[in-house]
């Protein structure tokens, strides 16, 4: 059951670095994060890695394993054959701090720039009333554990550094969709979605949905519906015409 696995881990920082080879013991049922921890405890005490829950709930341990963005704690060693070299690198879209740890402040800045939740008033008796069917769409998006793997894989910023200025990324476009579908929210974010957060940059190629560890249908349920809502607001000639002749206000 126990075997020696061949690991190749990126070590270094912003100044430079490279892939380094290690041989580490693996026991039955272990995940990549266990192996990284064993490496830390036995061979590389200063190997930098983020983690918290080790249960796929906090979204801290994001990295790339054999070139694919994944959570270290949800990737089982059993997914690889015993003689396969497992390559582990930090996320390649964000600046590296050290080893597997990257500077994810891009994400926090985008989060802060989105117009916040703006609720309607409570009912007279002090309650908010919402039906289950009305909260479910936004609830799916609120499953997000902010691992930023979708942000990492999205080619809009992964392959084009300068797009970071104008593009919020799938996680935060989904946040706009979440608020737009929130039964209590009172703000129209469709225009800013397109103009300030770069929804039009997304070409719906679905890599975000492919890597999401929470299985959120980011593209189908958030991005495309948001694009359709933006069309209602910005591109639909009928709406536009209607607004021009003043028969129909912006919906």
């Amino acid at each position, binding site marked *: 059951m126990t075997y020696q696995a061949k690991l190749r881990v990126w070590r270094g920082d912003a100044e430079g670095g490279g892939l380094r080879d290690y041989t580490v013991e693996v026991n039955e049922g272990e995940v990549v994060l266990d192996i990284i921890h064993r490496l830390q405890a036995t061979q590389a005490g*200063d190997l930098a890695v983020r983690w918290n829950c080790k249960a796929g709930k*906090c979204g801290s341990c994001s990295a790339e394993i054999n070139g694919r963005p994944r959570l270290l704690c949800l990737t089982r060693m059993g997914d690889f054959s015993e003689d396969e070299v497992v390559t582990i690198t930090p996320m390649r879209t964000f600046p590296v701090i050290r080893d597997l740890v990257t500077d994810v402040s891009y994400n926090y800045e985008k989060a*802060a720039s989105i117009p916040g939740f703006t609720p309607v008033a409570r009912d007279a008796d002090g309650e908010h009333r919402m039906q289950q069917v009305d909260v479910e769409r936004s*609830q799916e998006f609120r499953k997000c554990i902010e691992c930023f793997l979708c942000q990492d894989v999205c080619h809009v910023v992964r392959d084009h550094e300068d797009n970071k200025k104008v593009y919020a990324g799938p996680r935060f476009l989904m946040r706009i969709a979440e608020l737009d579908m929130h039964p209590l929210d009172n703000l129209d974010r469709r225009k800013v979605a397109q103009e300030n957060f770069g929804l039009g940059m997304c070409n719906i190629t679905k890599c975000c949905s492919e890597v999401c560890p929470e299985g959120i249908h980011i593209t189908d349920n958030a991005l495309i519906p948001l694009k359709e809502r933006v069309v209602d607001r910005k591109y639909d000639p009928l709406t536009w015409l209607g607004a021009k002749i003043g028969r129909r206000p912006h919906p």
Partner: protein
Amino acid sequence: MADQAVEKHFYDVVVVGAGGAGLRAAIEAHEQGARTAIVCKSLLGKAHTVMAEGGIAASMGNVYAEDNWRVHFRDTMRGGKMLNHWRMAQLHAQEAPDRVRELEDWGALFDRTAAGLISQRDFGGHRFARLAHVGDRTGLELIRTLQQRVVQLGIDVFMECTVTKLLTTDDAMVGAFGYRRESGEFIVWQAPSVILATGGIGKAFKVTSNSWEYSGDGHALALRAGATLVNMEFVQFHPTGMVWPLSVKGLLITESVRGEGGVLKNSEGKRFMFDYIPEFFKAETADNEEEADRWYDDHTNNRRPPELLPRDEVARAINSEVKAGRGSPHGGVFLDIASRRTPEDIKKRLPSMYHQFKELAEVDITKEPMEVGPTCHYVMGGVEVDPDTAAAKIRGLYAAGEVAGGMHGSNRLGGNSLSDLLVFGRRAGASAALYAAEKKATPPEVTDDALAQARQEALAPLERQGGENPYAIHAELQNTMNDLVGIIRTAGELQQALDKVAALKARIANLSVEGKRRYNPGWHLALDLPNMLTVSECVAKAALERQESRGGHTRDDFPKPTPEWGALNLICSSSDGAVSLTRQPLPQMPDELATLFQETT
């Protein structure tokens, strides 16, 4: 030699911790007009609160209109075996519903009742269905909502910074000192008010549902600053953690599995919980399988199945079965829902458990039983605070959340922690802001000497060569606590543990780590270790002292609760690194509340 510069910041209120308690405290302090900063070890939104599953307990009465704060108060006190600070339990029960409601103003989306209100679910020890929830990810909803609120308000957050020392002058807070994990640079926040919201201590144990953050920092920081800890002997072991594969040993399996009909069996296939019904709960617990099974459909005419006894009872029973040689192959017992519910039902009601086992253990819980065993989950003990203001025994220091003690007595009910965070987080934030406003005229001063000393202490392990490996010492401590200060305790083993902890304490004076200051986990662990050792010592000492069994503290040599101990709290304090214990009478509950316990069940 690295440069001597220390990054300096000035605030009215500094909140250490960005879990539910810390975030709620910061929101309140900010709203009261205080310049507020939040400091946390991880990234924002990753604190332990994110892992909570079941729900937030609050007697909103959305499902059972007869529910009210008095019932909740009573359940909480009974769950804590009457050792709770009555005033905390009262404030908690009274204020929780409003705290939950205001989350909705900040964007939270709880599951709904048919009337469109927040839905509430059943949980162990709560008389009525009262846990506001979102599927099995309530903690995520809570932390995300508060996080988004904090960001919207523009409160400063210092992520990935660890506080290593609280700074005091003349027994009053003047600030907090720490380092940036990312760069290893030092940083000081000068402020008259500091709120501790650092969570628990579970990482001192080997089998635990807690993360690396739970190194008891807040407990130790408070103790060293001159504050006191209460109830440290009470550590909650959740009865159902995963036991296999080893890699995930300790990972939590939610109580809802049993709530949904799951039963515990030993290797002989017997539902053993019927053999472990204590006198105290006989009247309300079914004594045969037929009645227990009928309960799920008919609560009124049947008594609860024994699998749903409080956590401490179930954890002890599992422990006994394994000790008697009737355990599962990997040293647990079987939790079986496969033979009791249809696969469709299981997948619908317990989606994340289904996935957890599928992904991490390759077990299909709709076909096979799970192997489960107790896991260290929560510490009831914590900083001794004034219930109304959350103030610790040092001027300007406040504590809220898991790091504060008293609220849960000897055993916490499921769901009562998240509500605790909100109620006392808010109270701590308000009183910290008020105190800071009073101190406006005399801003805190931190001396260069104090900074230089804090720096020196933190850098020591990096400068030493060829000393002890922090990972090895951590592993030894975890084994010690697990084996000797676990669910079942005896005087001999506790004494052994104390000796061991003393020896480790001596060894950590000689820690050394490889590498440099930039994001170096070895160094980070080296700085967390003294905290874990301090809290471990408190737990073991208090556990040795308390010669009875109650809630989260079970002594094999004193198996029964006693009235004398039921009237006493144990208080830890420290001077010059040595922990000492004092006995303190329980605060007296006013008569109007005491009468609540004379009613029949």
